[in-house]
């Protein structure tokens, strides 16, 4: 484990990625409570000493909005990532390990969900919840529509493990299916599942932004997410009017988080995957 970590730290990609990611997490966690918002200004005031990143259409300071947005987007991303990874991993493990009819049925379900365009489902369900869509609801929706990819790749890995000797040994020793899955298969996949989780978080953040962008995002006090900021800017014709500060900071923050997660994932793959190991 320690050796792995040492190897990881040698990877510049990992260092950059984790630095960016930790910074965003810290900003998201602590920012909103540390940065006490400045009083309301006029609509779309340009960046100045008083408002570092200007104000939005309602005169609210963009720095405060971005920090809150970051916090909420991370919350949605992690929540969605946890849900999608848990469901996907469980389904994948059982399908891969059990094989046979269980595999066929679970596989059918997975494929069914893959065929249904998840974004469309997301849009339809969000739209049918006109009142009080909370951040948690959006996260759960995203989690429940994005798990099939995890399930598929975990299943492939689990299948390849099924025939290994140590599994057969465990079975001869009378271990139950659950024991085998969680004690003898999952640990082998842990690094892989972790990488999958990171990507699910990234895709959760992106999905939330996309769904908020078209006006189906979270509603309610304090539920400003990065996507909601972009949506407001879009609705207020920020581009037409040249209010770059309404769009670019939020877009850059989204890009940075997703990029950081991508770097993390890629660098881990290089270390964890023996075939890619240098």
């Amino acid at each position, binding site marked *: 484990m320690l050796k792995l970590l040492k190897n990881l730290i040698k990877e510049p990609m990992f260092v950059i990625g984790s630095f960016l990611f930790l910074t965003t997490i810290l900003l998201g966690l602590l920012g909103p409570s540390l940065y006490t918002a400045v009083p309301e200004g006029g609509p779309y005031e340009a960046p100045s000493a008083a408002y570092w990143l200007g104000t939005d259409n309602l*005169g609210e300071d963009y720095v405060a909005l971005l920090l809150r947005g970051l916090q909420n987007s991370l919350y949605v991303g992690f929540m969605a990532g946890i849900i999608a990874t848990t469901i996907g991993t469980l389904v994948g493990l059982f399908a891969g390990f059990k094989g046979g009819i269980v595999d066929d049925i679970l596989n059918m379900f997975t494929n069914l969900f893959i065929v249904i365009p998840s974004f469309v489902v997301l849009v339809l369900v969000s739209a049918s919840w006109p009142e009080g869509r909370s951040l948690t609801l959006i996260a759960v929706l995203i989690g429940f529509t994005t798990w099939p990819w995890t399930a598929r790749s975990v299943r492939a890995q689990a299948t390849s493990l099924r025939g290994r000797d140590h599994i057969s040994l465990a079975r001869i020793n009378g271990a139950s299916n659950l024991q085998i899955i969680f004690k003898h298969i999952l640990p082998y996949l842990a690094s892989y599942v972790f990488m999958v989780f990171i990507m699910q978080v990234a895709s959760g953040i992106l999905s939330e932004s*996309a769904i908020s962008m078209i006006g189906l995002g979270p509603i309610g006090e304090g539920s400003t997410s990065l996507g909601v900021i972009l949506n407001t800017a879009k609705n207020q014709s920020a581009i037409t009017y040249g209010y770059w500060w309404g769009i670019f900071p939020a877009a850059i923050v989204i890009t940075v988080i997703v990029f950081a997660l991508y770097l993390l994932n890629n660098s881990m793959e290089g270390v964890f995957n023996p075939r890619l190991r240098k």
Partner: protein
Amino acid sequence: MNFSKRIACGALALSLVFLASCKEEKASGESKTSSYPRSETLYLSGSQWGEPNTFNPLVEPWLVAWPANDRFNLMYEPLTAYNSLTGATEPILGILISYDTEKVVVDIQPEAKWSDGVSVTSTDVKFIYELGKRFPQAPTNYVGEFVSEIKVDTVDGKERMSFIVNKAARNNPLAILDQLQAIRIVPAHVFEKYLSDSNNDFDAVKKIKCDKDPVVSGPYILTQYNNERIVLVRRDNYWGNKVLHDGALPNPKFIIHPIYKNNDHFAINLQKGALDASMNYIPRINEKKKDGVSTWYDAPPYFVPGSMHFLYLNNTKAPLNDRNFRRAMAAALDYAAISRLAVSSYTPEMKPGLIMSEGLEKKYYNAEEVDKHSVPLGDKEFAKKLLEKSGYKAVFDDKGNLKHSIGPKGDTLPTLLIKAPAGWSDWEAIVNLAVKQLRSIGIDVREGFVDGSQYWPALPTGEFDIIMRKPPVAVTASLPWNRFNAVMSSRNWRPVGDGNFMNENEGRYNNPNAAGYNKRVDDLLDAIPLLTDEDALKAAYAELNNIFLNDQPVIPVCHLPEEYYQFSTKVWTGWPTEKNPFAPPQLPWVGSGINTLWRLAPVK
């Protein structure tokens, strides 16, 4: 690996959504092969959103394409036009001769002709006015409630028509005056033939599109249309050029209504000079000045206020059925912030009540009475005290956010949702601010942005707590009476619930079957249209406004123009403005705003 692909897909989807939502539309009128020279073509937009279906003026107005729908005077003309600047009723097909509580008298212009050469006569007028008697589904079926009979005499070689007020029904000559402008006259000889060809099957006649060589009386006629634009061409032998405009022709040879999908396109195309005028809400218009986009006034409020936008309150639901609760809400809102942040300062300083303190209504505005009866606007302390006095309490968490409110009986009050159509950015901003302001004094409200398909049906059935609403009150001769009527009349009061439609007073104020019914409201609403004495009229309006201020059935949040009027001087000049008010602040297609067409000049 799959996930990288998925991330890439996600990022791509996000950027596509973003690009799609803010892409600039190519100005459809600018193509080089266009047969409509820019210097002879006037581009106006804001009335047609989807593909044009039909140009048949007998179809329900909301299904008909511009300019055969609504109040546009370009193809089919009304008898008269109302000038919202002067209050005058100006002649078009007819000349208003007199108006009293018994009848409205109009002379038909003897020179008026249809485009096929047939004269416009009282037969045409009677055809459309009395169509409801023959076919109950006709769009003018409401006329019978107001006009009991139309008499025709000949005076000095002119046909003189007397519209007799229907005393037994609505008894409202003011509404007849409005109808002179609202009802456009259609050629009876053409539509009678359609009717006899189809054995008087009205629905069959409605299926005729009237898009090929329609017979019209107006200065322009439809020549081409598709899902991107509607093109009208000038009729050089328009009868009104000689009679109404000293023989001059309107300057634009073509009028094109480009059909845009998105509100942004109006701002972009105006700025580029691809659109000459539009009637849409464009935020922060002052920032467009440098691109040659102008408005009536050079300074805020930029537009002439004409209509009030309201928060309609469901007067049958607790706690909104409590007068003091409603008054506290009216006091708590920060109207200056709403004006500055939500509607780009397009509203003048808010005065309480249903009578505007400027423009033609000013003569009925009594500042003393208003101050006596109104709550102070924008006074949070007053609102808090009023709530406290009435037994309301609020529970805040340690961060200062409202948790819930408690009513006078100790019950936790429900969270009230403010409904507004999603995507209407100005209304959304108003609701956002109202929620913030109301929650800060302990009123538990939330945003409820819904799809249009959920917004519109909620109004007539009353299925809302609070809803943003602009009542369909046109700027006509009957203001402010029609505003009071739209907000306070309980003539058609129906309980909230399915199938119970109310098209005025949707907040269900003043239930006529309840113990507290105030009959004076409906009596005043009935009496005002019959008053001709100015002092009596002022007294009646003051009394009605005082009742409104005391009961506060709805909350006016801003005074915006009835129709936005913004124009570009890149291609056409000579638009009416505050400094050159030869026509009212309207696009040159409705009311007496149409006179602008004869004054516009192409930039050389």
